[in-house]
């Protein structure tokens, strides 16, 4: 319904004005105290508040003005639509963002393309021998594919964030704002419901911490997997300690539990998403969001499978599938739900 609203900003401003006269939801999250402190509502403020919203939905289920009330308040939905609009508008090129944010089938196609590319490369570029995975794909070939696939999307995302930061007038980053952001992200404070009771997601009007816990597993699992790759890169170039690594080594000790956490977290998020009301989010991008969660699940599940298959004949195929999924994930980073973490971090850092 909201996706065709001619001016999302006007609709958000209308709803904010009602919220500002009520204030019952002040304790749920960071959005409301910041909203109530604004001298006036501007498009930039609305964009900032939209990116601060974690879609916990507490304010919707507590709202005496939710539809079918004639005030028709659905703040989680309008803010989700506004966030989505922000991400697509600041993306470069915007067309890619519009396709991959909204369409799960496009994400799946990118994943298949990733698989195909890796199978093709592994078939054509025979490794000149090497241990472990390098027996199938040389280290140099891996770097040739993944270095640009990692750096270029991140560079594009950095430009998007810069224009977002300017739009909202984010201001100078201080130690205090860094501490605030770090504490909020580490504890997912804005999914706590304000008092630790959690959010209203898969159980409607009942509170639950399931989504917060699933998101924490996903976030920390992702961070550990990323750290495993980073530390392995450091070991490779800095210390000449090349893969394959034994279990009792930093990359494996970070990567295996990280992969398990990521797998469990994304699996739970997908399950919760099936049970939640799509009308309280950006309904038009439901498919793209779900595909992104499943893409992360695929990355972690195939990574674990690959480790489990060590020494078997399944390794080459699993390696191509895993690396294909990782490739698709990296390349799509600026054009999928993955950006939410960057924008929300920026919103938590912005001048309050």
């Amino acid at each position, binding site marked *: 319904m909201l996706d065709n609203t001619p001016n999302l900003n006007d609709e958000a401003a209308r709803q904010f004005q009602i919220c500002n*006269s009520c204030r*019952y939801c*002040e304790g749920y999250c960071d959005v409301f*105290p910041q909203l109530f402190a604004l*001298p006036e509502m501007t498009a930039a403020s609305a964009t900032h508040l939209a990116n601060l919203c974690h879609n916990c939905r507490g304010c919707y*289920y*507590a709202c*005496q003005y939710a539809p079918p009330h004639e005030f028709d308040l659905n703040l989680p939905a309008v803010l989700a639509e506004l966030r989505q609009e922000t991400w697509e508008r600041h993306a470069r090129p915007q067309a890619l963002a519009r396709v991959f944010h909204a369409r799960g089938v496009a994400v799946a196609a990118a994943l298949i393309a990733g698989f195909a590319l890796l199978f093709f490369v592994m078939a054509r570029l025979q490794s000149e021998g090497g241990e472990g995975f390098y027996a199938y794909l040389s280290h140099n070939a891996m770097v040739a594919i993944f270095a640009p696939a990692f750096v270029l999307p991140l560079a594009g995302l950095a430009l998007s964030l810069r224009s977002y930061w300017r739009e909202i007038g984010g201001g100078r980053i201080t130690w205090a704002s860094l501490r605030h952001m770090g504490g909020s992200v580490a504890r997912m404070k804005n999914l706590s419901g*304000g008092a630790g009771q959690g959010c209203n997601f898969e159980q409607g*009007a009942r509170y639950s911490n399931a989504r917060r816990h699933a998101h924490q597993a996903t976030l920390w699992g992702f961070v550990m997997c990323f750290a495993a790759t980073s530390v392995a890169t450091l070991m490779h170039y800095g210390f000449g300690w090349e893969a394959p690594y034994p279990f009792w080594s930093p990359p494996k000790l970070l990567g295996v539990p990280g992969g398990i956490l990521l797998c469990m977290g994304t699996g739970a998020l997908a399950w919760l998403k099936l049970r939640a009301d799509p009308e309280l989010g950006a309904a038009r991008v439901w498919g793209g969001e779900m595909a992104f969660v499943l893409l992360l699940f695929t990355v972690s599940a195939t990574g674990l499978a690959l480790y489990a298959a060590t020494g078997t004949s399944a390794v080459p195929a699993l390696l191509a599938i895993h690396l294909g999924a990782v490739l698709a994930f990296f390349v799509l980073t600026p054009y999928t739900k993955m950006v939410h973490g960057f924008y929300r971090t920026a919103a938590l850092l912005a001048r309050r």
Partner: protein
Amino acid sequence: MESSQAGEMMLQYDVVVVGGGNAALCAAIEAAEAGARVVILESAPEHMRGGNSRHTRNFRCMHHGPLSVLTDTYGEDEYYDDLMRVTKGQTDPTLARLAIRNSEACLPWMERHGVIFQGSLSGTLSLDRTNAFFLGGGKALVNAYYACAEDLGVTIRYNAEVAHVDLGDGRFHGVTLADGEQIEGRAVVLASGGFQADLDWLARAWGPGAENFLIRGTPYNRGTVLRNVLDQGAQSVGDPTQCHCVAIDGRAPKFDGGIVTRLDCVPYALVVNRDAARFYDEGEDVWPKRYAIWGRLVAAQPDQIAYAITDQKAQGLFMPPVFSPVKADTLGGLAQALGLSGDALEKTVADYNAACREGDFTPGVLDGLATSGLEPPKTNWARPLDTPPYYGYMLRPGVTFTYLGLKVSERAQVQGAHGPLPNVWAAGEVMAGSILGQGYLAGFGMTIGTVFGRIAGQEAASHAG
């Protein structure tokens, strides 16, 4: 829970709770915890459940020392004095003190049953000692209680409007729903709210001007059950013209506009009627203490309408209204936009401005900056209205709940023509007239509902068991 008799479904419960707001839920939870088979008959559909409780925001609570989100101490006598001030003595002292004394134990009970409190909301700092605010407001409280009741096995029926309460032979037997369905029970708790949504009843009490009243809360409190049991000899208490009635934005919806339709601008405004004439001291006291009298003041004006006029200086001194005010660069332009006589408004403002004195203006506290030689005076915050643009806010009486209700005992038992009805209890707005004869004290409605809801639930379960 349901038994089939003689081929037709005849539902029988230990305790039938009529209503679905705070008092009803507290009663149902207490009764279910005591082991009773309980049904809640909520006349509203699920999305509108909770009666007026869905619009509430806090609970006024006696306490000795900090309690949950409440600071300092709020003792029984101070609480009682606050109540007596607003009701001008129109209260039952025994029931009032009972409600006050029990409130302290209610707050932890509420928390145990899922209610989450938050510190007082921005703009309400004066209440952080006396009133505990619900995180998310009254609908979140209602949601928590419904979840709790479901978990306790209470049967919850929505769209279940009770048309008749069978009090044959002076005791409760069962209820008949609007669709003819009959539900039997050993005891009943009546927690069906006031009658404010029945505009005809309001008009009978107030006269035809009641057509211009706005109903701030649920459209489902039509007083059907109250009227039904009064007709069967239940004793009433309270004056049908008394209600919690505040001045709200005249553009609010006819029903269910709730908290956002309130206007806090009066102390910093001039308030004029349809004839652009002032009629009461706008600066008599800080707004929270005068909030509840302005509904009746506006109701007494021609066409039950008034206009609060401010200039640019007053912007930002009060909570932002949900509807943007009418704005004009001149008083004449504002009068035209509001449909008032420009000459009359200019004269009223000129007279007022001429009566303003030099002095320090301090918002939020009684600053003593009063007019001199003006009738009626403005006794605080009287600054000249001279800085355009000018703003106009239309005011109408907004009825929150009516006070005519059922007379109850200290055990919340309903009184019949020949003494107490042995298995009939009442709680919440439907009996609040016993305690609130007139006036209103913020957060006290929820205190009455919680205290008497719990008592009624315990008593009904004990009777049925």
